[in-house]
């Protein structure tokens, strides 16, 4: 049986309306960020932010799950910024975020990873 919330929401709310609607992230904001990402981004189809709302949600879920693993290792129950940073460093596909998280974290391990990345 299909999940009622997501798919029936699509038919009932009609997708793009500027409100969050059935999507967990506001489409207008997603579109704004997309436009700000580069000079070349001139036109964005209506469905692109919708696809992104799903992808972003999955990204946040994955990074959160991985951060939580680090939190548990430290026998804590509050996810800290360093847990997120550790999760980023430990996951290959999140390499593009290493400089972003190391800016706010002074861990030696992260600096070493950055140097390694630069070398290769």
């Amino acid at each position, binding site marked *: 049986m299909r999940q009622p919330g997501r798919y029936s929401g699509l038919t009932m709310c009609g997708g793009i309306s500027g409100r969050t609607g059935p999507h967990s992230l506001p489409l207008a904001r997603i579109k704004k960020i997309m436009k700000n990402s580069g000079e070349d981004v001139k036109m964005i*189809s209506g469905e692109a932010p919708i696809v992104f709302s799903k992808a972003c949600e999955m990204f946040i879920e994955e990074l959160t799950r991985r951060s939580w693993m680090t939190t548990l290792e430290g026998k804590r129950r509050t996810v*800290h910024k360093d847990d997120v940073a550790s999760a980023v460093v430990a996951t290959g596909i999140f390499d593009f975020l290493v400089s972003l998280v190391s800016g706010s974290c002074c861990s030696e391990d992260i600096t070493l990873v950055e140097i390694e990345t630069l070398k290769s």
Partner: protein
Amino acid sequence: MVDQEQDGMLPIANVGRIMKQILPPRAKISKEAKQTMQECATEFLSFVTGEASDKCHKENRKTVNGDDICWALSALGFDNYAQAAMRYLHKYREAERDKAAANNNQNTENIASHGGLQVKEQIQTSNLEFRALEKGDNSLITKP
């Protein structure tokens, strides 16, 4: 309190809610962790958009569409996101088609002047059995 910097990022409330939903009920999230996640998610958006935009540019296309995003996700190593996003995109397109067809049903006299695509949708809505098949498991149709 509107922070201009915040305006260029995904809203922290939404980000926090997604994080909370995935964690156990008693887990807590520090404000800084939410902020870091907010920055990471925004960067993710820009990163993937850049890749999709590059592809469009190379192919002399001006509009970044849903398929471009799915392609970029896959190209950057986010295969599982790409697959789920494709399914989501197809569901969205299906819903939009149904919605458009439902609207067309009310304007039957305009169908002829709008061209082939509208006529096709008109046929789909008037044949309930066909519509039911469409909403079923599409994998049966695509398998050889």
